């Protein structure tokens, strides 16, 4: 099964870059890849670079910024390929952001499941 691990963390300053944290992420990604668990993963630009798109009555409504203005924002994600939730959680808890933010783990709905 594939799980989307959404990384919700605080990101105060646009220019802020934490080299040590970045190294920890690289280490995590390398370990997950070596275990055959890592299906995808990226970090994202600052939430202020987000554009939220809605279409109402065929009109595009764009807003500057993330969908919800919360203290914690999605700052990155991993797609983890694990046999069950326990193992997905075991990997998610090792994502560096879990120490100060939160990791939301959600199963990805596979196309063939959707067709049933």
């Amino acid at each position: 099964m594939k799980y989307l691990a959404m990384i919700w963390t605080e990101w105060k300053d646009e220019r802020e870059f934490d080299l040590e944290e970045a190294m920890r992420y690289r280490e995590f990604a390398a370990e997950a890849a070596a275990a055959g668990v890592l299906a995808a993963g990226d970090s994202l630009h600052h939430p202020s670079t987000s554009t939220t798109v809605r279409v109402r009555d065929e009109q595009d409504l764009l807003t500057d910024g993330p969908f919800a203005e919360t203290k914690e924002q999605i700052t990155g994600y991993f797609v983890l390929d694990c046999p069950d939730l326990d193992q997905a959680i075991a990997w998610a808890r090792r994502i560096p952001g879990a120490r100060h933010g939160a990791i939301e783990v959600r199963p990805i709905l596979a196309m063939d499941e959707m067709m049933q």
Partner: protein
Amino acid sequence: METTAQVEQIFRDEFTRLFAWLVGSLRDFEAAEDALQEAFLIALRRWPVDGIPPNPRGWLAVTARNCAIDRIRRERRRPDLEKQMDHLTLEPKDARDLDDEVLCLIFTCCHPALSLDARVALTLRVVCGLRLPEIAHAFLLPETTLAQRLVRAKRKIRNAGIPYEMPGTELLAGRLAGVLGVVYLVFNEGYVATEGPMLLRPDLCQEGIRLARLLATLMPQEPEVRALLALLLLTDARRAARTDAAGEPVLLPDQDRTRWDHAQIQEGLSELGRAGRHQQAGPYFLQAAIAAEHTGVERADDTNWPRIVRLYDALVRLTPSPVAQLNRVVAVSMAAGPDLAYLELGGLEESLGDYSYYHAARADLLRRLDRRVSARSAYQRASELATNPKQRAALARAAAELDEEAAERFGDS
């Protein structure tokens, strides 16, 4: 007519094992429940005519399996599963093996990825085999709310891939604590019903004890499981004395101890003894030991409060929860007097300010310190915060009694 009652009894007795066995292959709570329900309806139709088969469990198992296969075929889903189900058989000798399945079922129902409400409801539904209206009634919930909660939980188990197996050794201790927490909660919900007119809801107490017994049979090597069973037995043994004829709450020192269930106390003590053979005292062991101190003496005055304080000290070290600390302070007041206890109580205001029992304990200390005005407002605050109507009324009465005493005093002078 009589057969119908018998069928229902058999179904109740066999439900959990059969359900666990079916989920083990289907990996789908909803499908297993549907199949079992269908098998039950067939039994209700056939058995009164054909007679009860010699091996009812096996009969129900085969029928439920066939119902599940039919449904899979009808819905043209998962041909892999269809084949697997074809090979699935249940021999009468398998009762022992089914125990492992039941254990998996319990751990899945109590998985921490489910909300606590969902864990409790699911455990009562599929492990205790209670029916939906029974659970809804016990928790004073509308049936639709509960049904929704159950459906959501069952789907999460399937869709999020919550594993149907015993957790590995590195997770076991934490998960077991979670399971015991659910059992304790079920019992406690019955013991101090938070709402509703009755102080006690004995059915949930019985279910809690049943679950603890079941776990003690399935995991005899786990000392905390036995300790929990001991705690529940010893606590429940006092039930008859906890309310008076009018249904009003009676506090521990005022209880008629001859009304305690002494056979159950003996059973609790022997479970506690078996749990105590292990090295480390866990939180349930300590709480059961405290309960045993109370049930072990014939008169309230004989209670060994210093020993109870020592047990609470150990408990607070292990689980520094504010409620455990509050209970410790109450024990300190009995062992060393209200002055010292009142000093220690101060630190708990912040975390327990909204907790009725905190204000009741504070009121009691203030009363013993002869600070009547403060005691009165503390009783009032406790009464406002109590969710059980009987307790609310009793606390309001305690406040009113202080008024009367004050009036008498001033009347004298």
